[in-house]
């Protein structure tokens, strides 16, 4: 079985470093691709732009998607992913700072599989990332291609 990739869409380098550290601490050693804005994330998923020579059938196991992103925001990324046949069933976990009800509602309406708020306490953050990894990479069965 091929190495399961995680697509982390995150513009804040501190959060990126902390997330990667948390993944590492949770013994999640998968290949992690980081996209730093919405456009880059879509390019990766749809194999366009700088990712045009990627194999379109090689989809990540899970996308960890921030909501506030430069260029195209997280909700729009989610909408486009769900609009595309090839990616409509791709597991997408919203990983964000916000606990605003509107954000949560919009995420679920647009087809997010899960909504996780990043805790400030790093111990809790590691915990959360660990559980996410365990669930989406080990327990969860991916949809048929």
């Amino acid at each position, binding site marked *: 079985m091929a190495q399961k990739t995680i697509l982390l869409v995150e513009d*804040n380098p*501190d*959060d990126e*470093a*902390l997330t990667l*550290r948390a993944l590492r601490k949770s013994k999640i050693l998968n290949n992690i691709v980081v996209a730093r804005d919405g456009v880059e994330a879509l390019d990766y998923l749809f194999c366009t732009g700088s990712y045009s020579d990627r194999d379109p059938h090689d989809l990540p196991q899970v996308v960890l998607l921030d*909501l*506030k992103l430069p260029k195209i925001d997280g909700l729009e990324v989610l909408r486009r992913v769900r609009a595309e046949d090839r990616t409509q069933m791709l597991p997408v976990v919203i990983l*964000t*700072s*916000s*606990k*605003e*009800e*509107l*954000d949560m509602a919009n995420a679920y309406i647009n087809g997010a599989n899960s909504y996780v708020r*990043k*805790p*400030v*306490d*790093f*111990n809790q*953050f590691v915990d959360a990332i660990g559980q996410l990894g365990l669930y989406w990479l080990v327990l969860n069965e991916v949809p048929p291609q």
Partner: protein
Amino acid sequence: MDKSTLSPRIIPPEINAEELRGLQDYWDVYEAHRDEIFGELLRRIAQIPEFRFFIENTSLHPSAEQQRENIERQRRAIYEGEWEPYLNNLWEQGKSYAQAGLDFRSWFLVVSAFRQLVRPYLLEAYNQTPNRLLDAMTGGDILIEFAMSVIGESYLDTKEQLIRERDQKIQAAIEREHADEIFRGLLETAPDPVVVVNSEGSIILVNTQFERIFGYLRDDVIGQSVDILVPTRFHQQHPTHRGHYYKEPRVRPMGSGLELYGVHKNGSEFPVEISLSPLDTADGILVTAAIRDISERKQVEEQIRKLNADLEQRAVQLEAANKELEAFSYSVSHDLRAPLRTIDGFSMALLEDYGEKLDDDGRNYLMRVRTAAQRMSQLIDDLLNLSRVTRAPLNAEPTNLSSIVQRVVHELQQTNPDRIVDVSIMPNLVAESDPRLIKVVLENLVSNAWKYSSKQEFARIEFGVLEEAVNGRVYFIRDNGVGFDMAYVNKLFGVFQRLHTSSEFAGIGIGLAIVQRIISRHGGRVWAEGAPNEGATFYFTL
């Protein structure tokens, strides 16, 4: 003379053959001596003062011609049975006497005199035949009495009619005077100035309110042109408009849709409303103009317009403020927390990766950095909660407060299984409120009671309601915990205000601020009473 003018009470006499013979005998004697009898009669009645007038008044005194006609009518009645012309004539005579104001009693005297004057001639004529004398006298009496009764009826009828007419005239006069009085009364009691104008545009009547509002005295304006009350700029058109009104006078407001102004004696103008009504009088059509000073109404309208405009602007500002607040909350929610995560995360990384290179102080400092970051994160969350409470829509419905308190206590008991608290909840207190928001209130108040009674050996919490005259239904949550000093009661509901240190009791001081917002959004009030170490009671209305 038409027959119909005869009084229905007069019926031509029914005379039998015997009476007719007597009547004709009488007539023959009277006609033979008419001049002597009549001459003597005139002499005699000249002695009756009431009748002298009749003698002297030629219009009433029959001319020779009329007398001849009278004689002829009488003769034809007696000899040919043609009573009607004779009776009509008698009727007319009675009428003219009555109209001349002749006393009816005088007539009686005349007729008695006449009877006496005729009698000697009858005696002389029928001296030899007493039966004929008796019949002729009876016939004469029949004629005289019949004539008397016709004239009498006519006289009375006319008198009655005259009295009726006079009464009507008097009544009409009284009514006219009364109407005048009523009109003046109405004019004076009218709430607004009233000006009565004739067809030339001259003022002929005003009321006291006019004097008050326009500053003129009655005598200043009576006879003046109504134009003195109209701004100069309207002088040119005003007579034309007035002319139009007189062509089609009816009750209507003046210049509907136009802004009208009156001019005070001192020259100042004020906005007015005028209603016109025509008044048909003996002096031609007059126009009554009721003038209402609407300065005050205009001012009020202007104020209302301004207030509405202000209100609209405020609503716009409020909406903008709300949008801004939402944008702010959104930004706080996302952006303010990220740096805190960095501070905490990298402090942790430092501790984990380089912990051995630091001494206890260094590690302690990093722990303090982390604690502060986490606390700030908590503060941000609480502020966001507070702002959410303010922004959330209010959906009030009947809500069972008692069962919410029961659930909250149950949760607290599960979280702190070792606490033994005597909880008393008045059952089934239902209030019209937003169930989600009121739950936040009760959670805060009950957890406070739970928290601040934790050091008590026998903790007690009570939820109930009081019926107060001033406040109506007042709900309360009481505990026997540490209480507070009433000197600081004003700080209780402030944001991040605390009466205890975090080491004494955990918390950051946002709960009661949220409680107060929710209660005031329900249109209620919340307040507290307490004393150090004697517990606290929180009251609220909805």
